[in-house]
C-alpha cells in the first residue's frame, strides 16, 4: 500500500537546515493497522504529511498503492487525496460554520458526485459512527468524541483505501479514546489500511505493528502477534 525508500525531507530557513526525515524507509502493507510513535521532532507528522501527499520531499522514492507520487502534478495529488486517502486530525478540523451533514459532504463535493449519491454516502457514514440523529447539528453543539466521530464519518463517506490519523485521540478523554480506537479497528477490519501517529503506547497497542521514529529514521519496529489488540480480527464486529 505504502512504500517509502530513503525519503529525505529538509526544512530550511535562512540560518538553519533541519532534516525532518533522514533516509526514511517504511513499508506498510494493504489492510495493515500501523502506529507510528516517537518523541517530538522525530518526524512523525512530517512522515504523515508526506504519506498523505500534503507535503513534498527532497529525495527518495514513495509508491502509494503502486503509484510513484513523486512525478505527480498537484491536481493529481489532490485527486488521490480525495479518492484514496482519509485524514483524521487531532483537533478534528471540522468547519465550524457547516453542520454535520455538510462537513461530511466536503470530500464528496470535490469528487463531484451527484447529489443523490452524496446523500446516501453521508447518511450511511453517519449511521456507521452513530450520529444519524445529529445531521443538522453544528460542530460546536457536539462533544469532542462526537466531533471526532463526524471527522471519521467524513473519511468513511469517501471510502478511502488508506486512513492517516494524526493523534486522533489526543484531545479526548479515556472513554472517548476507546470509542474512537474501537471505531478505527472496525474500519481496519473492513480492509482499510490505517496509519496512526500517536504518543500513547496504549493507543499504539491497538495497531498490528508499531514503528518508532527517531531523528527522522525508523529506530525500531515492533511486530507483536496478531492477538496484541486483545481480540481476534475475525471476531471483530462488522461495520455498517
Amino acid at each position, binding site marked *: 500500500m505504502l512504500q517509502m525508500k530513503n525519503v529525505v525531507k529538509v526544512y530550511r530557513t535562512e540560518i538553519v537546515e533541519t532534516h525532518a526525515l533522514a533516509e526514511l524507509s517504511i513499508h506498510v502493507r494493504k489492510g495493515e493497522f500501523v502506529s507510528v510513535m516517537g518523541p517530538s521532532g522525530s518526524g512523525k507528522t512530517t512522515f504523515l504529511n508526506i504519506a498523505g501527499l500534503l507535503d513534498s520531499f527532497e529525495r527518495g522514492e514513495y509508491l502509494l498503492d503502486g503509484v510513484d507520487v513523486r512525478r505527480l502534478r498537484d491536481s493529481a495529488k489532490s485527486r488521490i487525496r480525495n479518492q484514496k486517502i482519509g485524514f483524521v486530525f487531532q483537533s478534528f478540523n471540522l468547519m465550524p460554520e457547516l453542520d454535520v451533514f455538510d462537513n461530511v459532504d466536503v470530500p464528496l*463535493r470535490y469528487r463531484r458526485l451527484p447529489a443523490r449519491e452524496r446523500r446516501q454516502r453521508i447518511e450511511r457514514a453517519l449511521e456507521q459512527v452513530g450520529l444519524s440523529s445529529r445531521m443538522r447539528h453544528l460542530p460546536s453543539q457536539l462533544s469532542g468524541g462526537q466531533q471526532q466521530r463526524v471527522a471519521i464519518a467524513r473519511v468513511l463517506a469517501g471510502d478511502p483505501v488508506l486512513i492517516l490519523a494524526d493523534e486522533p485521540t489526543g484531545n479526548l478523554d479515556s472513554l472517548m479514546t476507546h470509542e474512537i480506537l474501537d471505531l478505527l479497528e472496525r474500519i481496519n477490519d473492513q480492509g482499510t489500511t490505517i496509519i496512526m501517529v500517536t504518543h500513547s503506547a496504549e493507543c499504539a497497542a491497538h495497531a498490528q505493528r508499531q514503528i518508532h521514529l527517531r531523528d527522522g529514521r525508523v529506530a525500531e519496529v515492533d511486530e507483536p502477534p496478531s492477538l496484541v489488540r486483545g481480540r481476534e480480527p475475525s471476531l471483530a464486529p462488522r461495520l455498517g
Partner: protein
Amino acid sequence: MLAYQLRIAWKSLMRNPGHSLIVAGGIALGVAVSTLFATVRHSFAKDPIPEKSDSLYYVRMDSWGPHEGYPGDTISPQVTYQDMNGLMRSDIPVRQSGMFKAQLYVFPDAKIGRPQREIVRLCFADFFGMFDVPFKYGSAWDEKADKGPEPVVVLSEEMNERLFGGENSVGRSVRIENRHFRVVGVLDRWRPGIKFYDLTQAQVQAPEPVYIPFEFVRAMELRTAGNSDGWKSPDQRGFAGFLASETTWIQFWVELPTAQHLERYRAFVDAYTLEQRKGGRFQRPLDNRVTSIPDLMKELNIVPKEANATMVVSLLFLLICSLNLIGLLLGKLLARGSEIGVRRAMGARRLDVFMQHILECELVALAGGAVGLLLALGGIEAVNLWTKTMFQRDDFFRIDWTMAGFAAVAALVAGLVAGAYPAFRVCRIAPAVHLKSQ
C-alpha cells in the same frame, strides 16, 4: 459546484461580518467615485438617439471666403439661409430640416402670469419625425403649414403645463410676440442626453419649450439666438440683406436611411457647391461634410477633456481602493489556513481553493458595488442640483442601465484585483503548512 462554493463563501463571510463590511466599504467607496465620474463622462458621450444615429446626418459646407478659412482649421458648423434653401431642394433625404433658435416673448393667459422670453425653435415639420420626438397630445404640423407658413405651434410638456395647466391644449391659441399660434401638438417628456440636433451652443440644455414653422423667420424677421459666423458684411442692408448674406446660423439635418442615399446626397451637395461656384461663391477647395451624429460628436469634442480626466482619476482611485484591500484579504486568508489545509487534504485542488476565495471576494465586491451604486446615485443627484442653473435642467447626468452595468463590472474587477493575489498566494502554500497553522 458553483452553487456549493457560493454557499460556502456566504457562510464564510457571515463568520466575520465586520471584516466583510470593511472590504465591502472599501469597494463601495471606489465604485461610488468611479461610477459617478464615469456617469458624468457617459452623459456627454452616449449616443443620444441610438436607434437612428446611423441614418441622421448633419450637413456643413465650406462657404468661407477665398483668402482665409474658418478659424480653427475646420469649417463653419452651420449653413447660410440661402444654402439651406438650396439644400432643401433635394428629394434624396426622406426627411430634412433647417433649424435655429430664437428668443421670443410668449404670452400666457393674463390670469396665469406675465409674458416671458422663451427659447423658440424654428424648424420644418420633418424635425419631429426625423428625431422621433414623442407627442403627448396632437402631432406635428404638416408640410402645408411649413409652406404657409401657418401660425401653428408645438409646446413642450413643461410649457403646456405652464400655459394650460397640463391639459390637452390642442386647438388652443398661444400668443408669441404679436401673433397668435394654434397649438397642434404637445410633446411628451423628451430628454435626449446631449441636445444633439444643435451642438453649436449649450449642448446639455433641455430641448426648447416652443416650436414654430421655420418660414416665420421671414414673416417675423427673426434673428438667431444662437451662434452665427460670417466672413464678409452683407451686400444689402436690412433683414433681406441678412438672409442673403454669407452669415452661417442655421443647423441643417437630413435623414438618409441607406448608404446609397448617403452617397447620392453627398454627390448632390458637391454638385450644388460647384453650381454656386459658377456664381462666384465657394472659392475655397471643395469641403462639404455630411456627418453622422457619433462622428459629429467626436469632431466637435462634445465630451469635455475634464470629464475624461476625472474618469481616469476615479478609476485609479478604485484601483487604489482595491490594492489597499489586498493586505486585509491576505491576512484573512492566512488566518484561515487551517480550513484551507483541511479542504486541500480532503481533495480540493489549488483551483478549487482559488475559486472559493475569488467567489468570496466577488460576493463582497458585489455587495460593495450595490452600495457604491446607491452612493453614486446620490452623488449624481447632487451634481444635477449643482449644475441645474448652468444647464437649465436637473436631469442631464443619469445613471442608466449601462452605468449600473459599469458599477457591477467595476465592483467585480475590484474584487478580482483585491482577491486574486491573496487567493493565489494561499493556494500555492503546501497543505501541510496550512494544517500546521492551526
